């Protein structure tokens, strides 16, 4: 079984020397981003509860994996998030307002910021992995120094697309990074029932590509592993499979009840108290004199402000109009679209739709 790469222990101690490999400014950025996205995540759950947002997929507990990996990227890199990877998207430059819009069911919720390649959250499991092979391949053929980073979960590794993507990337040595957040569950199904294989990283052997198993709650390990994978990718040495061991504290989505399938009190609380990614980095930073309570208070205040501002932006954003559904189906609308748009004369009135 592949061993687990860890740099920052849950206690906040370094388990190995990383001198010169990770700037303090980056460490602080990591921390700030992790706190920001955690607050964002909690806010989102609240918004869903208040009926201001649709079903939402929270990521609390997985911040180190998403923030550490996305922070390692450079602006032109391609990011392929799933429905749970808004933290990564935000770190790579997506606006929080846009993420809110997405979960509010707005038509414009998955537009990438100009000049950046933040792909729409991918819903059909594992399908985005192959796109990240294609974009990376195109980058390579066009001599652009960019990697493509595909996120996916442990459950995704059972889909055929996982296999086809890794195999393709191996054959064509595309600069793709396959980043698996193994949070232990695919909705209710634990990884032990997902596969007889003990780890996901070991699957890299099937494609003769490097596979690494890392502590996904250790943001340093995530970032350092990413940097290595990026270097290999840009050197023409092809893809890397990263398995980041992590945990989602909460429900699969706001429509899910994790108590149905696991002991939330015990398991989730254990992870939260003993292996939290933010806690351990905070301990580390404080011990190094890089972080203070005053800074913390400032950060939280600023983050909450940003989130509130994003929410105001999202909620005051012009609502999607029925006509929007006819736009962007094709570059040029067909006669069907033109004609059918005419049938919208009577917009849907909530009152008369049977419940």
């Amino acid at each position, binding site marked *: 079984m592949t061993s687990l790469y860890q740099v920052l222990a849950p206690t906040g101690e370094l388990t190995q020397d990383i001198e010169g490999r990770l700037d303090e400014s980056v460490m602080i950025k990591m921390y700030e981003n992790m706190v920001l996205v955690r607050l964002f995540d909690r806010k989102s759950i609240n918004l869903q509860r208040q009926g201001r947002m649709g*079903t939402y997929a929270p990521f609390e507990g997985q911040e180190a994996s998403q923030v550490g990996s996305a922070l390692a990227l450079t602006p032109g890199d391609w990011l392929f998030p799933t429905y749970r990877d808004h933290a990564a998207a935000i770190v790579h430059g997506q606006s929080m307002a846009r993420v809110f819009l997405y979960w509010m069911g707005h038509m414009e919720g998955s537009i990438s910021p100009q000049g950046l390649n933040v792909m729409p959250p991918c819903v059909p499991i594992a399908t985005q992995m192959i796109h990240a092979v294609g974009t990376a391949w195109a980058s390579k053929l066009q001599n652009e120094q960019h990697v493509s980073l595909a996120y996916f979960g442990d459950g995704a590794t059972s889909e055929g697309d996982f296999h086809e993507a890794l195999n393709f990337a191996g054959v064509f040595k595309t600069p793709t990074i396959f980043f698996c957040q193994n949070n232990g569950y*695919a*909705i209710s199904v634990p990884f032990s029932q997902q596969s007889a294989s003990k780890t996901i990283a070991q699957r890299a052997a099937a494609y003769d590509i490097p596979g690494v198993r890392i502590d996904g709650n250790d943001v340093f390990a995530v970032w350092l592993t990413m940097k290595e994978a990026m270097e290999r990718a840009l050197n023409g040495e092809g893809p890397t499979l990263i398995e980041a061991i992590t945990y989602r504290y909460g429900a699969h989505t706001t429509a899910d009840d994790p108590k149905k399938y696991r002991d939330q009190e015990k398991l989730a609380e254990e992870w939260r108290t003993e292996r939290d990614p933010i806690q351990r980095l905070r301990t580390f930073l404080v011990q190094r004199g890089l972080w203070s309570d005053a800074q913390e208070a400032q950060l939280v205040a600023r983050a909450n402000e940003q989130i509130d501002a994003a929410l105001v932006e999202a909620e005051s954003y012009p609502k999607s109009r029925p006509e929007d*559904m*006819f736009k962007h189906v094709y570059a040029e609308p067909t006669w069907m679209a033109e004609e059918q748009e005419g049938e919208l004369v009577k917009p849907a*009135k909530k009152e008369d*739709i049977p419940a």
Partner: protein
Amino acid sequence: MIRKLTMIQAITEAMDQKLAEDSRVMLLGEDVGVNGGVFRATEDLIHKYGANRVVDTPLSEAGIIGAAIGMAMNGLIPIVEIQFLAFIYPGFEQIVSHAARMRYRTRGQYHVPMVIRTPYGAGIRGPELHSESVETFFAHVPGLKVVAPSTPYDAKGLLIAAIEDPDPVIFLEPTKLYRAFKEEVPEEMYRVPIGKAKVVREGTDISIFAWGAMLRVAEEAAKQLEREQGASCEVVDLRTIYPLDRDAIVASLKKTGRAVVVHEAHKTAGMGAEIISIINDEALIYLKAPVKRITGFDVPVPQFSIEDDYLPTPARVKSGIVETLTF
């Protein structure tokens, strides 16, 4: 005492009773075991029938459907749950190239008595790809049957019929109706025959053909029109999408001379076109006006903030009916 169930309860009961009655019946799917299914359709069944018969599978639709095909060929009767209709695509090849063809290729020697259950349709504020209504994909595949109930009663009876059917059945459950209302559902097992439509409202001026969640939209439009304009609308719940109940379609049309079809699916190559064609084939001379299709548009199902505008509404159905009546 009258016992009323929601559609999801009726579906659970159908599976429960068949699991109890026939040891060949099995359930397979993502999260159908311990979790009881993402919509709780299989709630508690793993505890009653064990993990050998109610199986939490890996996240792998080709695997689930393909394995179920093998099981069905070897003596079992698998009921597969796919979490949402759009997630059936990874298993599409298994359905089209194998499930639908095994009987044919082996001249009846092997067959695939399997049911694939899946929620379908919009209107639940679901994220992308949780609202598709692509029944056409399956209706165009000889060897499959395609069913879509609109009431708890029919859901139970059709599901039992589907489980007992010796051929593969795609069982489409209108997500929006899972818990929308309750109705009386007999406790004992009964069958609603596959391939038979039902006239749910008699009328003389126009026929409305619909199924699944659109049935209620059709009924609502019919009620409003009757009240508002005295129009007498016949509403026919097709219930089975393949094979269509031609006789019921033609009989209703001959009576009314006018028709609309209401479906959520995209208009082009939707089943509305097939229904129009059946009328063309069998009853053209009875037609007093073009058959109007009130359907989902030829656009991807939009994000949920405007999904109600994508779906046929009673208002759209009414305006379609008026157009047809005044042609």
